[in-house]
């Protein structure tokens, strides 16, 4: 009698055993992080599951051209940026980790504002991301990492809904210079779907200044409905990768040649814009 009782009680306990051992190792500080602060255990157990839910069930993201992302070695994924919050970058990270045959872990280069904000700063680091600086990029390339960057930055994230799928300026092309210097290929990437998650109809500049944000979004639901307005609309997503743009034949010195950097930047930008048009047409209705 007691034996069977123990077995029945043991089954659910066994199921939660990994959870207990996870909590135990966290409380004891018994885990390792890399020099960037990447904490694989926390990332896989706590940060990725909610992102994965969004990816699979809320947006139903589909990947195109994954074969253009190399299975090993350093490469730079350059993508468009939109949707008020960097949800697109998270979906790209989930997609490459789950659906790429080599399960590549994307290390995104974020703006310095990310690292000045409480909570977000250390969660970004624990999730494996770094600062958009030449030093961080070079270091990740040397380690053979797959690096991601959104050169539009806040210009892309905070642009009005009317300008959807129109790429903004690509900064000064710092990403191209870094890739050329390291001789790593650039993979243009287009993300369709993020534009519709928070359709931004206005930017409340005084509020943005008040909070120190780069913009303060006004959408049909936010800030009118408060936290409910922060739920992203369930748009349909497509993420596409184009053929890599090789940079190793240019030589490291080309990284200091503005004309060369501009040419590479422009080529990548054109490729992404073209791919965006194609994917938007392929997707059809954004909600449906």
């Amino acid at each position, binding site marked *: 009698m007691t034996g069977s009782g123990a077995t029945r009680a043991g089954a659910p306990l066994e199921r939660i055993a990994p959870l207990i*051992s996870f909590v135990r190792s966290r409380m*004891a500080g018994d885990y390792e992080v890399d*020099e960037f602060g990447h904490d694989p255990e926390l990332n896989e157990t706590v940060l990725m599951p909610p992102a994965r839910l969004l990816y699979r069930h809320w947006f139903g993201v589909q990947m195109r051209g994954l074969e253009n992302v190399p299975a090993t070695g350093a490469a730079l994924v350059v993508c468009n940026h939109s949707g008020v919050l960097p949800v697109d970058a998270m979906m790209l990270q989930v997609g490459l980790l789950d659906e790429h045959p080599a399960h590549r872990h994307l290390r995104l280069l974020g703006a310095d504002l990310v*690292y000045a904000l409480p909570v977000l*700063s250390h969660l970004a680091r624990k999730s494996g991301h770094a600062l958009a600086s030449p030093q961080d990029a070079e*270091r990740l390339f040397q380690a053979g990492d797959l690096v991601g960057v959104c050169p539009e930055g806040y210009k892309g994230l905070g642009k009005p809904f009317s300008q959807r799928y129109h790429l903004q300026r690509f900064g000064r092309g710092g990403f191209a210079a870094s890739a050329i210097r390291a001789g790593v290929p650039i993979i243009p990437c287009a993300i369709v779907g993020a534009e519709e998650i928070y359709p931004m109809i206005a930017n409340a500049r005084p509020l943005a200044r008040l909070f120190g944000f780069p913009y303060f979004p006004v959408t049909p639901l936010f800030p009118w409905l408060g936290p409910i307005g922060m739920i992203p609309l369930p748009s349909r997503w497509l993420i596409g990768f184009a053929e890599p743009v090789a940079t190793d034949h240019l030589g490291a010195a080309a990284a200091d040649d503005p004309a060369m950097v501009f040419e590479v930047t422009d080529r990548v930008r054109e490729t992404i814009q073209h791919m965006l048009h194609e994917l938007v047409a392929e997707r059809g209705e954004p909600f449906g």
Partner: protein
Amino acid sequence: MARVVLITGVWSYLGAEVAGALRFVPEVDRLIEVTSQDGQASRRLGDPPPDQEHADEQVVPLDVRTGQIGELINATGADTVVHLGLATTPASAGGRASMKETNVIGAMQLLNACQRSATVRKLVVRSSTAVYGTSARNPAVFTEDVEPRETHGYARDVLDIEGYVRGLARRRPDITVSVLRFVNFLGPHVDSPLTRYFTMPVTPTVLGYDPRIQFLDICDGVEVIRRMVTEDHHGIYNVTGRGVMYISQCLRRAGRVPLPMPARALGLLADLGRGMFDVTPDQRDLLRYGRVVDGSKLEHALNWVPRHSTQEAFARFVADRGLADGGSATAIDRLLAALPSAAAGMPG
């Protein structure tokens, strides 16, 4: 090559340990230990055991801020100068003004003396990774070629000292100059704001921030300086144990209770609880943004790796100080032990 070695700052924990190690280096025939004038020789390690061969030792109480150091170098014919006389906190130096004077004027006098000396061939200088500063705009990992830009307090002093050292290296290219940018030391005798921070019963942290941090076990620090004395390595080197930890991780491993508070409140607490809890503004920033450096340049130069990683150095520190190791984790273990059916299925 080294024959007569002059070492400053023997009053500090690092100076005492280095002096203790250098006395048994066969290449060192004579060791001149300069300590501060008010004779804080109490931290010096005991006399060497008589049965072991050791260098001639001479302890000289001397104020490095005066020109006497030049006379001492001339009189002893020192060929190697190891400058470890750095005041790291205002509290330890009797105020910020006096700290700056000890650090900057002391270094100027010493470097002047080296420049005019005919015998000095080598200079080893203690610096700090604090020179890189700490902010959200910093690269994740500092290499030696990142331009330091910290402008406050201790880091400013060290940056000034490095500036004077660079000037000396330019004017006297025949002197081998090694500048060692150390991360935070941990060790049984190390008494720094950070060691005090980790031994507080409740540890204040900055709400919403979890910085990355690195440590160097003091015995690895001593070994690096010993090698710099016996081998020639010109240049600036970051010195750190391998690996990185988060502050939250440190506190958990040490079984500390974190008390998160806004950065401003932390500053206020530091002002109120002076002496018991001293957090300088640069440490407050460190508790927000952290700092990680690349130590590989030194590892390549010395063809050697610090014996203790950041994590090992911290583990040794936790054991040394008798801090509760993983308090809440042991509670979970006890809880699991109370559930025999679960214990069977538990890994580890």
